[in-house]
């Protein structure tokens, strides 16, 4: 399978229930690929669309995801600095092969599309028709991002026992950009292996997953983190890469554009460019390599950006 095909497969699919007479609306939004009920497949294909059939049963069998974004949760998160984020990346990391369906609230479909793309998730988007333009623009952007089939980079491992509390720990780790790999048993690859219920990580501690994530952060140390974000508390990262290059996904859950976001990546990287939804290909700014880390700023972050960098050896 070529990288290009991989990229196409990773694009989330818009679930469309209206008949082919609605094709002008999809075309106006530049949406060319949809998922429809099997009986509608032929008509849509005849209309020139790339179509995937999906039965009601298959749709119902998919794990339903909450709409991503920021939400107010009194007493749990500050409304302005570190608000509560609903994000699904940890679910994708936990169940890499699973199939998902987003049933998103108006205004969040493009974010959902970006989130699914960033994690290579097999996801269908049930969207509000008012979001067609935004989703279409995001799909067009995602389609134009150069393919990259790179493994995820992690700083620690979480031993998955399938428990809900473990999932919540993963959620809060992801929220803090503490990159983890889900494993079935402790991995010698990592200095930190979180296995809930062990003396090092008692279950009681995980009852407060935010504090627990903070403990893990302290154990790892900020200096050893593969990625740091400065200038926002509502951007979640996914980092993939190998010895030659890395790809950083930046997902902005806040809804407001962020300018001058500063990124620190552990390791030395040169060159690099950002692909920013709504802005296209953009040069990185103020890039420096020092003390085993690479820092740069991106001039603006809309909903989503992909940054590719080449390793220095």
């Amino acid at each position, binding site marked *: 399978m070529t990288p290009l095909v991989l990229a196409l497969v990773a694009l989330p699919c818009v679930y469309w229930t209206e008949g082919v007479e609605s094709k002008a609306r999809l075309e106006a939004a530049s949406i060319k690929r949809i998922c429809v009920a099997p009986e509608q497949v032929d008509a849509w294909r005849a209309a020139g669309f790339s179509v995937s059939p999906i039965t009601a049963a298959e749709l119902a069998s998919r794990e339903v995801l909450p709409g991503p974004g920021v939400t107010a949760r009194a007493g749990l998160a500050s409304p302005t600095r*570190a608000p509560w984020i609903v994000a699904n990346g940890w679910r994708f990391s936990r169940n890499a092969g699973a199939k998902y369906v987003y049933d998103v609230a108006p205004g969040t479909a493009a974010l959902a599309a970006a989130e699914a793309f960033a994690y290579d998730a097999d996801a269908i988007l049930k969207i509000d028709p008012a979001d067609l333009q935004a989703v279409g623009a995001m799909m067009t952007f995602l389609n134009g991002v150069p393919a990259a089939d790179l493994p995820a980079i992690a700083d620690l491992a979480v031993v998955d026992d399938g428990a809900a509390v473990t999932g919540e720990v993963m959620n809060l780790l992801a929220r*803090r950009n503490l990159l983890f790999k889900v494993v079935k048993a402790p991995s010698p690859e990592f200095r930190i292996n979180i296995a809930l219920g062990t003396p090092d990580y008692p279950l009681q501690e995980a009852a407060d997953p935010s504090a627990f994530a903070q403990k893990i952060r302290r154990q790892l140390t900020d200096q050893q983190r593969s990625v*740091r974000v400065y200038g926002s508390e509502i951007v979640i990262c996914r980092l993939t890469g190998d010895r030659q290059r890395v790809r950083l996904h930046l997902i902005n859950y806040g809804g407001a554009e962020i300018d*001058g*976001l*500063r990124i620190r990546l552990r390791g030395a990287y040169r060159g690099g460019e950002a692909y920013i939804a709504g802005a296209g290909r953009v040069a990185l700014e103020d890039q420096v390599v020092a003390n085993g880390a690479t820092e740069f700023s991106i*001039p603006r972050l809309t909903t989503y950006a992909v940054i590719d960098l080449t390793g220095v050896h």
Partner: protein
Amino acid sequence: MHRRTFFRLLAAAAAPTSLVTSRRRLATPLRAKAQSSQIPSGLPVLRVVSSYAPAPMPGMPGPYPGRVVSVKSEKCVDTATGTANDEVVREMMARGMRTLTGARTTPDAWRRFFQPSDQVGIKVNCGGYPYCISAYEIVAEVVRQLTGIGVRASQIYVYERFQNQMDEVNYAPHLPEGVQIVAAERANRNVDNSGYDPAVYLEADLFGEDDTRSSMMRLVSTRLTKIINIPNMKDHGAAGVTGCLKNIAYGSFSNVARTHQRGKSHTYSVIGTLASIEPLRSRTVLQIMDGLRGVWHGGPFARTAKYVFYPRQIMFGTDPVAIDRLLLDIIEHERRAHGAISIWDRSPASLKMDDSQARDEDPNVNILIREPGHVEYASTFGLGVYDRSKITIEGVTV
């Protein structure tokens, strides 16, 4: 009325990448040594990153450490209306500057600090709008004196962190054409970072926040050669008072609201540390504390006239610590006069965490344990003289 376009000094105006690279120096510890028994233990680790070297004589404390000129006038503000008398303010400014410098003429006094080639920043305070901001009359007079000694209007930058506050205050109609009005962020929303220099910052993990950096405004690090600081005489819920140190420090760096939350304030050590970071420290050469009006409770804001008072004075100096040391007494005195708890009160009984409504309604409520000790702590960086017995006050009455 006209309004010039506000703008931020964005990345394009900053030093090229190669320069930024060469200026960068990681891991420069700048913790003040404990010089006072009152310095509490358990201060957070603060890491300063800046490769700017200090000037031979840094602007703070400058040529007049421990020296404050206080110019008072009963006529400077109509306390019934809050309106300032422009003519009286001008005279207060002239007398203050001449007394501070010993110069025979007012222009000569300004020439002691500024040359026509300087790019001069005027750090105003807009947070106390509408009742207590850096007075239009003072800011306009500063600009008038600067242009009078040959600094072009286009080389003068009135600045504050937030554009929405600058919009509210709107200095433009009071200033000559060409004066730049600059804000780093549209508002206090933590989404605008381009106006800050990624190579000059304070790094600290204070409450477990993920964004651990506070970066200096690019305007300060890359454009300005001199800065005039014009704070107000205000109470502050986290710092005790907000005077010279707080205005220049928290008004020139990003992401500082993170220093105080849930009852705890790290302003004690962060304010002085930020003020000491180069090039801010070296370039801030003149302190003009606007005490025409003041706020004795509820600060730094002044959305109500309830806590406004009228010190009717302007203080001049180059030592921010000495001026703020006097400010502590002024705010404390005013609070006592109203029967309010001391700015030094650390009683849990006074604390209603995060309840700003209760704080605004009752001057005996704190929403944080205030840290007026930040003034003394700043002195441990050599920013000025804290010991009241070593501060010389020269009083002038207009």
